[in-house]
């Protein structure tokens, strides 16, 4: 009888990511988000059926890192491009967009709201780090009040610039979306939870619009070392941007109830002499 040590993989780099090294700054959570999306695609075994749409922003080169069919979109227009891809290709394909807060919540706000409102069968991965990373740390629609950026050197003043936009809550007022959730990429536990949300979104994609917001960091833009940035996220962003599932097929808010008015009932308007 002999005894030998055998190695079993506990964690390996997923095959859905290419071998290319990322251009992201050290500690940037884009890398974690990329990996989670790639792992979910790997686990669902849909690599050959998935098409991703890249944003403009730091993740503009994401097509270099995903071993998938990828399409670059004009700034903020990824949901519109994904709509086209979804409608042209056979329904068994999976289409997702990967967008930051500058791309999705600022220049692309119209596209995301209308794609969600139409109930396009796509998954949107929304990276919210409360700052414009690629252009050098300007204020984003999601920047917290009082936070200093290059365009808010005295801190974001809500009376001047408005309060940060909670995109998940905003989209949750629409009827059509099937799944809206927010996760955080701040520690291994939150990352595991975030991955489950991404998986749910992909699994539900063929039933309607699915959206996952991921609270992220920008160590360079925030001027913090990566680990301190993670703690900053937990202490300052998470109380305002609450994590969790906002809507799912088994937990729909009242706003998801379709409204079909009885148009034959004119409410007595004719009797009052109103034009018909």
């Amino acid at each position, binding site marked *: 009888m002999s005894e030998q*040590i055998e*190695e*079993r993989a*506990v964690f390996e780099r997923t095959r859905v990511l290419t071998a290319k*090294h990322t251009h992201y700054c*050290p*500690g940037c959570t884009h890398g*974690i988000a990329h*990996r989670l999306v790639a792992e979910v695609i790997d686990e669902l075994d849909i690599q050959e059926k998935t098409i991703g749409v890249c944003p403009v922003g730091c993740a503009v080169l994401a097509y270099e890192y995903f071993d998938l069919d990828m399409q670059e979109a004009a700034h903020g227009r990824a949901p519109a491009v994904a709509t086209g891809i979804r409608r042209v290709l056979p329904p068994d394909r999976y289409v997702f967009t990967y967008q930051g807060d500058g791309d999705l919540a600022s220049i692309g706000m119209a596209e995301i709201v209308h794609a969600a409102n139409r109930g396009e069968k796509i998954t949107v991965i929304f990276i919210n780090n409360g700052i414009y990373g690629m252009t050098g740390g300007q204020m984003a629609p999601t920047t917290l009040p009082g936070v200093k950026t290059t365009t808010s050197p005295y801190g974001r003043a809500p009376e001047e610039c408005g309060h940060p936009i909670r995109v998940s809550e905003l989209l949750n007022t629409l009827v059509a979306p099937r799944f809206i959730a927010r996760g955080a990429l701040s*520690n291994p536990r939150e990352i595991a939870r975030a991955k489950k949300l991404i998986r749910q979104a992909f699994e539900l994609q063929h039933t309607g619009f699915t959206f996952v917001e991921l609270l992220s960091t920008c160590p360079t833009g925030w001027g913090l070392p990566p680990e301190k940035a993670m703690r900053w996220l937990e202490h300052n962003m998470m109380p305002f941007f609450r994590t969790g599932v906002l809507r799912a097929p088994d937990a729909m808010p009242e706003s998801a109830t379709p409204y079909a008015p009885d148009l034959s009932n004119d409410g007595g308007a004719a009797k009052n002499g109103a034009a018909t």
Partner: protein
Amino acid sequence: MNRVAIDQDRCKACRLCIGACRLNLLALGQSLNAKGYHPVEITDRARCVACAQCAAMCPEGAIAVYRGVKRTSA
């Protein structure tokens, strides 16, 4: 024995894995990689429990974790 394989070329020394290791087994090494960073190294391999929390935090996908399993065969 368990093994943590760190891709030395990919590592950007962000230290997120160092903070994730509950046993404090990871540290920046002395070597310098092509990017100009000091890649992370495991200091005490024998104590690693292969929990893979370091790999879960790594933004570069630079860490792979393997568990050593004893196999007895006739």
